[in-house]
C-alpha cells in the first residue's frame, strides 16, 4: 500500500484524470478551499482579539474588585437610614486579615487638586497611593520611579505624574525628575512620569502622591476613598466581594442585608464575561469552519460521483484489462484525498495571507485590535488530518459506486 503511494504511476493516473477536466477539478476544490480559509482566517482573528485583550490586561490584576462606601438604605442599631458610609484604613486592614483568598487590599484616595508649575497650571486628579498599586496595576514608567515605602514612611512630598500632566506643565524635552510643582499650594518634587496606557481600570489618576502625604494635605485622617481587593487566582472573586462587604457592614454597624451601603465594581466578573465571549467565538469559529469544510468535502464527493459515472466505460475497460476492484477503488479514493488535501493546503496558504493582511491592517501599533493574529501549527496539522480523514471517507462513496457496476455493463455504456 505504501509503495503504491510513492509510485509515479499512481500520481500520473491522478494527474491525468484531473487534468482531463481542469475546470471541474478547480470547482471541486473551491468548497474545501473556502472552508479551510474561513477556519484559518477566523481562528487567527479570534486569537488576535484574545492576544490584544491579554496585552491590554496583561499588567493588571484582573481577579479584583473595587469597593467604596455610599449611604445606608436600612436603619440599623439605632442609626437611621441615609447615613454616609466611609471606609477607613482599619476596615481595609480587617478585610485583608479576615477574608479568605485575598492577595492584596490596596486602599486608595483621590481628590481634585490645583497644580501650578512656574506660569503653567491645571486642575488634575490627585491620588494618594501605596507602592502596592504598582503591583496590581503595573505602571509603565517613562521616567523615574513609582512611590516607595520610604516616601510613605516619611510623608514625603513627592509626585508621580502622568505623561499628560508632563506635557501640559513642562517644556518639550525638559527634565521632569527633580522638578518642583505646587499641589494645592504645597511644593512637591516630581520623581516619576508614567504612561497612562490603553486601559485604566477604576478612576484614572493624573498624579500619584504617597498615601500618607495625601492624608495630610487633604486632612483625611483614617478615611479612604475606596479599596481595591485582589484575590488569589484560585479563589472566586465574587465570593471575596460578598465576604468583604459582609465584613465591612459588620464593622460599620450596617444592616447585614443593606446592599446599598457599599458600592463595588467587580473587575473579575467583567473580565470573565469577555473571556467567555472569546471562548464562545473560538467555539463558533471551529463550528463554522468545520461545517463549511464538511460541506466542501461533500461537494468533492458528489462531483467525484458524477466523474465516476462519466468514466463508467473507462473503468469497465480497465477492469477488462485486469484492474481489480480494489485497484479501481484505491485510485478513486486517492484522487479524493489528493483533491481535498490540495484544496486544504491552498486554503491554509490563502488563510495565512488573510492573517498577514489583517496583521498589517489592524495589528500594528500599541492600540492594535488584533495582536499577532495567527493559528498554531498544531491547528494546521489537525485541519489537514481532518481533511485526509474526510477525503478518504467521502472518496469511498464514488469508489464503491465505480465498482458496483459489472465490467460487462460498464463496457456496454456509451
Amino acid at each position, binding site marked *: 500500500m505504501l509503495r503504491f503511494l510513492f509510485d509515479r504511476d499512481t500520481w500520473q493516473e491522478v494527474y491525468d484524470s484531473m487534468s482531463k477536466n481542469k475546470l471541474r477539478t478547480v470547482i471541486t476544490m473551491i468548497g474545501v478551499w473556502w472552508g479551510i480559509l474561513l477556519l484559518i482566517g477566523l481562528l487567527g482573528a479570534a486569537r488576535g482579539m484574545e492576544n490584544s485583550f491579554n496585552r491590554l490586561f496583561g499588567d493588571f490584576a484582573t481577579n479584583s474588585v473595587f469597593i467604596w462606601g455610599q449611604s445606608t438604605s436600612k436603619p440599623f442599631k439605632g442609626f437611621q437610614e441615609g447615613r454616609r458610609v466611609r471606609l477607613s484604613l482599619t476596615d481595609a486592614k480587617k478585610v485583608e486579615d479576615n477574608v479568605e483568598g485575598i492577595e492584596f487590599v490596596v486602599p486608595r484616595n483621590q481628590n481634585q487638586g490645583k497644580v501650578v508649575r512656574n506660569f503653567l497650571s491645571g486642575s488634575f486628579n490627585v491620588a494618594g497611593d501605596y507602592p502596592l498599586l504598582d503591583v496590581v496595576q503595573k505602571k509603565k514608567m517613562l521616567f523615574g520611579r513609582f512611590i516607595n515605602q520610604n516616601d510613605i514612611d516619611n510623608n514625603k512630598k513627592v509626585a508621580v505624574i502622568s505623561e499628560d500632566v508632563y506635557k501640559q506643565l513642562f517644556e518639550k524635552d525638559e527634565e521632569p525628575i527633580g522638578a518642583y510643582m505646587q499641589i494645592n499650594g504645597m511644593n512637591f518634587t516630581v520623581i516619576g512620569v508614567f504612561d497612562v496606557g490603553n486601559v485604566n481600570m477604576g478612576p484614572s489618576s493624573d498624579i500619584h502622591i504617597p498615601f500618607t502625604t495625601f492624608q495630610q494635605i487633604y486632612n483625611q485622617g483614617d478615611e479612604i476613598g475606596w479599596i481595591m481587593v485582589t484575590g488569589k487566582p484560585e479563589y472566586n472573586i465574587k465570593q471575596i466581594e460578598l465576604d468583604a462587604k459582609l465584613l465591612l457592614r459588620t464593622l460599620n454597624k450596617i444592616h447585614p442585608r443593606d446592599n446599598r451601603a457599599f458600592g463595588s465594581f467587580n473587575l473579575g466578573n467583567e473580565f470573565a464575561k469577555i473571556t467567555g465571549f472569546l471562548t464562545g467565538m473560538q467555539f463558533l469559529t471551529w463550528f463554522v469552519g468545520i461545517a463549511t469544510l464538511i460541506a466542501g468535502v461533500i461537494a468533492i464527493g458528489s462531483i467525484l460521483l458524477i466523474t465516476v459515472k462519466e468514466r463508467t466505460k473507462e473503468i469497465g*475497460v480497465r477492469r477488462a484489462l485486469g484492474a481489480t476492484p480494489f485497484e479501481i477503488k484505491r485510485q478513486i479514493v486517492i484522487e479524493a484525498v489528493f483533491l481535498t488535501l490540495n484544496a486544504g493546503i491552498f486554503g491554509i496558504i490563502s488563510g495565512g495571507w488573510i492573517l498577514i493582511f489583517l496583521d498589517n491592517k489592524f495589528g500594528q501599533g500599541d492600540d492594535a485590535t488584533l495582536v499577532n493574529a495567527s493559528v498554531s501549527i498544531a491547528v494546521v496539522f489537525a485541519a489537514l488530518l481532518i481533511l485526509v480523514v474526510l477525503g478518504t471517507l467521502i472518496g469511498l462513496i464514488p469508489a464503491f459506486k465505480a465498482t458496483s457496476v459489472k465490467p*460487462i455493463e460498464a463496457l456496454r455504456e456509451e
Partner: protein
Amino acid sequence: MILEIKDLHKSYPIGDSSLHVLKGINLSVKEGEMAAIMGSSGSGKSTLLNIIGMLDEADSGDYILDGLPIKNLTEKKAAVYRNKFLGFIFQSFNLINYKNALENVALPLYYQGMKRKERQEKALFHLEKVGLADWAHHLPKELSGGQNQRVAIARALAANPKLLLADEPTGALDTKTSYEIMEFIQQLNDEGKTILMVTHEEDIANMCKRIVRLRDGVIMEDKVINQVRVEQYA
C-alpha cells in the same frame, strides 16, 4: 485444448420471465486456432464471448481455460485471470482517450505490477509490431480508426495472453482498413496466437480457419474452412 466448454447455459431475467440466451453450448478450441463465431443479433454470440472473457458468468456448465476451471470467480480473481490469460479487442477500440498510444498499450502491464521502464519498453515493442512506434505519443483522437484498432491490438498483445478475444474487431472500420486489420490478425495467428472473434460479416469470417455458427443459443454449424488470405484480395 486451450479452451473447453461443456453444456454451457445462460439466461437473463427480463421482468418476471427470463430469456434463455445460451442453451447448452459445447465448444473446444485448440492452440493456434483462429475461429469466427457467427450469428445474427440475439443469437448469443456476444454473450458467449463475454463468458469466455470472464466478463460474464454462465449459469451452468463447465468452462476450462488452459486446464483451469473458470467457475465462481471473485471479481479480483477474474481480473487477474483476464489480465494473465486474455487479450481483448473491441469493436469501438475502447482506448482511454486521455492516454497516448504507448500508455494505452502499457496499461495491462501496469495492472500486472510491472515496473514503469520495463513496461514502456515492452509497450513500445508491441507498438512497433503493429507499425505504430512513431505514433507512440499520440492520443487516440489524433489517430485514424485503423490506427486506433492497431493500438488496441498491441494493448491486447502486451500481456502476452493465451487467447485473443475480438468482438467485431472490424465493425467500426471501412472495408480497406478492415482487411488491413484482418491481415494483421492473420499474421498473429501465423505466429501461433489463438484467436476467437465474433463477427457477422461473411468475408471477415472466411478469413478465419473455422466458423462456428450460432442460432437461438445453440451451435448450428461448426466447420473448419479453407482460410482466405487477405493477400489474395490485393
